[in-house]
């Protein structure tokens, strides 16, 4: 017993041999940041735009971005504005592609670097033509905002916003033309999310739905009600194919549950029969 106590004592003393630095470093990293080792820890854009030295009008940008749809999808400052977020001296260097704030005339091209299909349709639309002729017509940020951009939905088309420039009649007609398809897209997205929660891998269907949605919304940016109406059938067919896959997955889940429940009953039956045998043990 003496040996056990001595060994236990030795083990308890052992922790004290850890160096202070090491422990401190470990405590800082362990269970707080260790698992984010591969992520860029430093982002000088956020750091400066959150500091007291920043002008008040630029101070809210970082917070707005953090709550945005872009942030949720991993689109950071340098993805739009260029620069190097990891190097404070080069974070706003044109040599690292920094472009800063675009002028109003540059906004469509600025956003269109990623949203290519939408840019094309927008430029050919009434909105785009007005923008090109006046240099000051409705552009991306007029409807979507900038840093605090949120996931687009049909409610962006509303009387308050559209009547700033023109009457609401055409916008209302467009909203009506979009309504059913947008509603279907929303329902299917919710169904896919439910399937994911039920343990089904839905990434392929989700990408497919996203692609249909992006194409449909690109079409909307033409602001041509007749064109949207003409092509709605095409999108309905595409969405029907996604819905069919979802229904089929649901059926598959049901049949799995039934099969598993059948096995459950088989074993429960076997167990009951055996229980009756074990009730009267005999030598």
């Amino acid at each position, binding site marked *: 017993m003496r040996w056990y106590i001595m060994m236990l004592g030795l083990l*308890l003393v052992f922790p004290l041999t850890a160096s202070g630095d090491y422990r401190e470093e470990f*405590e800082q990293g362990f269970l707080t940041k260790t698992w984010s080792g591969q992520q860029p820890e430093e982002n000088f854009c956020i750091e400066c735009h959150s500091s007291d030295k920043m002008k008040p009008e630029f101070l809210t940008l970082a917070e707005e971005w953090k709550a945005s749809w872009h942030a949720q999808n991993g689109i950071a400052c340098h993805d739009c504005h260029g620069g190097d977020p990891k190097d404070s001296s080069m974070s706003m260097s044109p040599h690292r592609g920094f472009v800063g704030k675009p002028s109003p005339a540059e906004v469509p091209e600025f956003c269109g670097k990623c949203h290519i299909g939408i840019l094309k349709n927008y430029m050919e639309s009434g909105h785009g033509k007005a923008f090109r002729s006046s240099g000051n017509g409705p552009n991306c940020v007029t409807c979507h905002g900038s840093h605090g951009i949120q996931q687009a939905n049909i409610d962006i088309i509303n009387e308050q916003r559209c009547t700033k420039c023109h009457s609401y009649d055409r916008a209302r007609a467009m909203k009506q033309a979009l309504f059913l398809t947008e509603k279907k897209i929303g329902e299917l997205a919710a169904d896919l999310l439910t399937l994911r929660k039920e343990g089904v891998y839905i990434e392929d269907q989700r990408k497919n739905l996203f692609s249909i949605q992006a194409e449909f919304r690109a079409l909307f940016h033409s602001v041509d009600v007749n064109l949207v109406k003409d092509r709605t059938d095409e999108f309905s067919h595409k969405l029907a194919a996604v819905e069919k896959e979802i229904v089929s997955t649901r059926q598959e889940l049901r049949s799995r549950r039934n099969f598993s429940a059948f096995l459950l009953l088989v074993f429960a039956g076997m167990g009951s029969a055996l229980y009756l045998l074990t009730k009267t043990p005999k030598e």
Partner: protein
Amino acid sequence: MNGTAKRIRNWLEVRVGLDELIRSNLTDYRVPSNINLFHTLGAVAVVGYLIQVITGICLLIYYIPHADHAFRSVQEIMTRVPYGWLFRQMHVVGSNLLIAAVFVHMVTIFLMGNYKRPRELTWISGGLLMVITLCFGFSGYLLPWTQLSYWATTVATSIPTAFPVVGDFVSRLLRGGSSVTGITLTRFFAVHVSLLPPLFVFLMVVHIALIRRIGLSATPFGRSDEEKRPLTEFRKKLHPDGYPYYPYLLQKQALMGILYFVVMFLVISFAPTFFFPEEATVPADAFKTPESIRPEWYFLAPYQMLKIIPNKFLGISLQIILLAVFIFWPFLDTHKEKNIFKRPVLRGVFIAIMIAMVILMWWGRR
């Protein structure tokens, strides 16, 4: 018995002495008359292991242990391989049930004092089997290469870095680098399918051989037949007034084995996502940290303990000490009384540990 069966039986009888083999292992092998259902948990664990082996081999046929393909191959198993979903569900649900069964087995053996002399080695081999079972769970958790498994493994493999001198080396050895990558996946895969199984089989053979060699221990509750003689020579516990193993205990074991299947299919049928949270359907992404990272339920108590002890090194050392105390407990508890109801201090400590574990698990889950 028809002619062919009779001929096969005779063929075996003259070569291996089949009748005597069956007699000595089934009907002449006596078990204590006051044996209870808790004595079947070891057999339940064996059933659980067999399920893991069979379903594991089925998964092994289709699984690709490569960071680029692991997640996809698991999804293929779930969606395209005929009954692949069933094998995977049985493997995943089975692993959790198995660990639960092993826990309960150890706890009941502890409560019945069956670790006491001359069964110290049986307890130690059982304790090591439990550690290997947890290693199976730990190494297998990473293999689907999901967000859940990736980040849980990242946290778990950073734990050894709390140790001075050897900590970094151990962590790098586990990961195969400074972070969890495809190399970690292949290492864990190798450990899961080729290192742990032979170790496990060896220990299980030792464990069962010791049980058979020493003889089953009777429950200390009610009529106790334990001798309190000094241990000076080996004497097998024969239980001449007990019941034959077959049918008495074997039937009970079979019943509990079936119950294990019933519980497994109950979970698969009505709670198929119980062990598959949402992150388990998202492929691993080293650049996207999930909002909450937590290990499997059986590691929640030690995980929470690590979180609440300010010095992580002390926390981990304490856990290793507790594990050592647990495994070598028969040498620390030399009291002759087996019945825990007659040992208020031990009973109190046991209840306190159980309550602490439940609180830590609940706390860790939040």
